[in-house]
């Protein structure tokens, strides 16, 4: 395949960026999207130019490190995959492909296509845990049965990889899908219920402080989420939040 790539280049967070054109040829449809960028980068290096910076690590869709806004969609045109699992067979010979970073006020560009998502970490620091010491002196794992349906739904929420596609896809740059996935995981499990009220309030407060927008229920996040995290989680988070607000003691 022969393609034209239009790629966002930006030296660092302080500089202005722009789109730059790169033609690329002899791409096999069986290659992954990032392998295609590897080829481009090695060609650029051999020509004495600077390679394109992009985040990636596991290349099997689980670490959440890769990002990219490809032809106007987070993680590109395929559904249920991250960019590293996107294959060139989803494109046609002669295509022009636009490659941009995930854009949001809370995700400043580090360089080219790499962005800073540490706001996500800070939301977790605010309450994304169960306050139990790691001494191992807890009760036997089977002493507290959990209804299979609840355990399965908690698992579904917990599969969020923290990539930020939800934020990049949302016209308000809202992080509600991401935050609600963690809130839901714990809210559905008996172990997490003890601190549920404090957790939802502190995490939501931190989310707002980081400059993420609000949810206006368009559902773009759910469509673009590579792990299929459901909007149902946002509804659950809202319920948890109002419940917590209503019962907050002074």
């Amino acid at each position: 395949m022969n393609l034209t790539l239009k790629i966002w280049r930006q030296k660092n967070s302080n500089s202005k960026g722009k789109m730059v054109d790169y033609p690329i040829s002899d791409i096999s449809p069986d290659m992954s999207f990032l392998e295609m960028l590897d080829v481009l980068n090695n060609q650029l290096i051999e020509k004495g130019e600077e390679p394109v910076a992009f985040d990636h690590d596991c290349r099997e869709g689980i670490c959440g490190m890769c990002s990219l806004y490809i032809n106007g969609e987070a993680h590109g045109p395929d559904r249920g995959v991250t960019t590293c699992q996107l294959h060139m067979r989803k494109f046609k010979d002669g295509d022009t492909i636009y490659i941009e970073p995930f854009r949001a006020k809370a995700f400043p560009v580090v360089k080219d296509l790499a962005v800073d998502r540490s706001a996500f970490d800070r939301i977790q620091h605010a309450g994304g845990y169960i306050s139990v010491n790691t001494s191992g002196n807890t009760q036997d794992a089977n002493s507290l049965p959990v209804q299979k349906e609840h355990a399965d739904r908690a698992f579904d929420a917990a599969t969020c990889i923290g990539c930020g596609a939800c934020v990049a896809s949302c016209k308000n740059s809202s992080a509600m899908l991401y935050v609600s996935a963690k809130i839901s995981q714990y809210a559905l499990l008996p172990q997490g219920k003890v601190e549920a009220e404090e957790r939802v309030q502190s995490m939501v407060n931190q989310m707002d402080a980081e400059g993420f927008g609000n949810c206006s229920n368009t559902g773009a996040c759910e469509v673009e989420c590579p792990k299929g995290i459901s909007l149902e989680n946002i509804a659950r988070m809202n319920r948890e939040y109002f419940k917590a607000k209503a019962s907050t003691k002074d």
Partner: protein
Amino acid sequence: MATLDANIPKGPLKDKWTNHKNNINLVNPANKRNIDIIVVGTGLAGGSAAATLAELGYNVKAFCFQDSPRRAHSIAAQGGINAAKNYQGDGDSIYRLFYDTVKGGDYRSREANVYRLAEVSANIIDQCVAQGVPFAREYGGLLDNRSFGGVLVSRTFYAKGQTGQQLLLGAYSAMNRQIGRGKIKMYNRHEMMDVVKVDGKARGIIARNLVTGEVERHGAHAVVVGSGGYGNIFFLSTNAMGSNASAAWKIHKKGAYFANPCFTQIHPTCIPVSGDLQAKLTLMSESLRNDGRIWVPKKKEDVEAIRSGKLRPTQIKEEDRDYYLERRYPAFGNLVPRDVASRAAKERCDAGYGVNQTGEAVYLDFSSAIERYGKEAAHVKGLDENDKSLVEKLGKEAVANKYGNLFQMYEKIVDENPYETPMMIYPAVHYTMGGVWVDYNLMTTVPGLYAIGEANFSDHGANRLGASALMQGLADGYFVLPYTIGDYLSGDIRTGAISTDTKEFELAEKEVIERLDYFVNNKGEKPVDFYHKRLGKIMWNKCGMSRNAETLKSAIDEIKALREEFWKGVRVPGTRNEFNEELAKAGRVADFMELGELFAKDALEREESCGGHFREESQTEEGEAKRDDENYKYVAAWEYKGEPSEAVLHKEDLVYENIELKTRSYK
């Protein structure tokens, strides 16, 4: 040749850990507040260690090269975590887990460490459940288990095919709690460049901020390296692109012995290599071997027809299929350990029965599992068990429930539906049993310097059993290191903060900067990957699934020559003071080039076959690995002497007091 003392506590095996904990020195809570610990790496081992040390009251600085600790490659572990809970009542026990692990490791691991691992395994599950890790459950609300290779019980806990993710997020949440409390200071996008020794003790590290390029000094009373394995030395592996050996190699060069570098795990079920420009291989969890059956055609003409596209695998009749694992190993069948399964696949493919264009693939087939689960589901629901399409539908649902994400991953990569056509798989580099040598306290040969998780060597011998890596990472981080490190730190309560304004830090920093400058100023022509790929080819062809003296000797020569070429010819664009991924990669590959040579040297020295190390000169008439306990029942720990070729061998004799050494048989 010197021998090494692992400081194993005296007394009966089952009391060693308890007695040791009772006898080692502790640091009181007030003094812990004055002690700093650096943890490098935030996977299961590093993340859990950082969280636990902080909870105990130490000041922790944690480092990871990724943009968040949650991305460490433990996240990609799929199948599960072992624990001797015996929830299934199938005869499991601490002893059996211990025994299986030592036997699975082909009697090249340390009894006392493995027993301790089995002992704390049950607590890991309790701990993770308390943290909200959503393990798979049965309808009664209790935890579910499955089987993994090399064992006859069901002791593996799992969260679909994402067990590593869920466990890592558990450790990450424990870290977040401590980051929120200010007890862990987290350094994302930072790479450890070297360890700094003061008066022979590890007293800090030099790190590079990967965003700004700034080189930083960090002091501490102890340094813990949990930076994972070195599988990426092969270029193509199931490791993440950033996974590297640099932290481990740097501490080796500063005095930590490196043990059994040739013990590498080639995992039997990975998606086969598709092309020259491929950057990484993808694992299909071993848990699939619970239900999938591995086969190749019996007849060469069928193989040809499949390769040329004239026949589909589903058209090969049952009697024309060779379920070679079931044939060769009837007792364990498809669940033989990984080293055995990998070699068996290689044997069939070398004999010309590989089923794809490259001749390097075998089938992993779920059709009988789909039928079995479908019938069971139909029976439970009171539906017609003889209705073929219904059974197929229900069976596919059941398989999707267990392995859905893996099947989806396969389909995305290969563009074939594994519910309809058998998967194609082939062995790939996955895990390294070798690593930094540590004693019973997980301390390296440098005082105050520790290695945990895959970065150390101690628990898996020459072959790791499935679902044991997660167990070891969390055991080291949650339950072992946080206590044993106190014994050492109790001597440091009066030391005070470690200053980084010393000549040792200055010198280490200078060396780091010189090397970075070398790369960006070098007038080379080829990118880092060009050399890394060539190193990978040497390693795979000459130090891969089977090795012999001749190929190993030539590997050593070739790696040396390639290393010289690399230093002369590598081109790193950009500068040192910016986000520069090529520069980071160059440093990692430079270290792989040295480690690769030690790897081959170690493999050459070990003239026996054991576990993942198969020396062609040492095999039985049936082609099985032939161990030589008389001459090689030891850990080979290498001391750095300026060049990998000059490394000096130290032996730690392995003493088996509780297990009788046997020829490993899975027949």
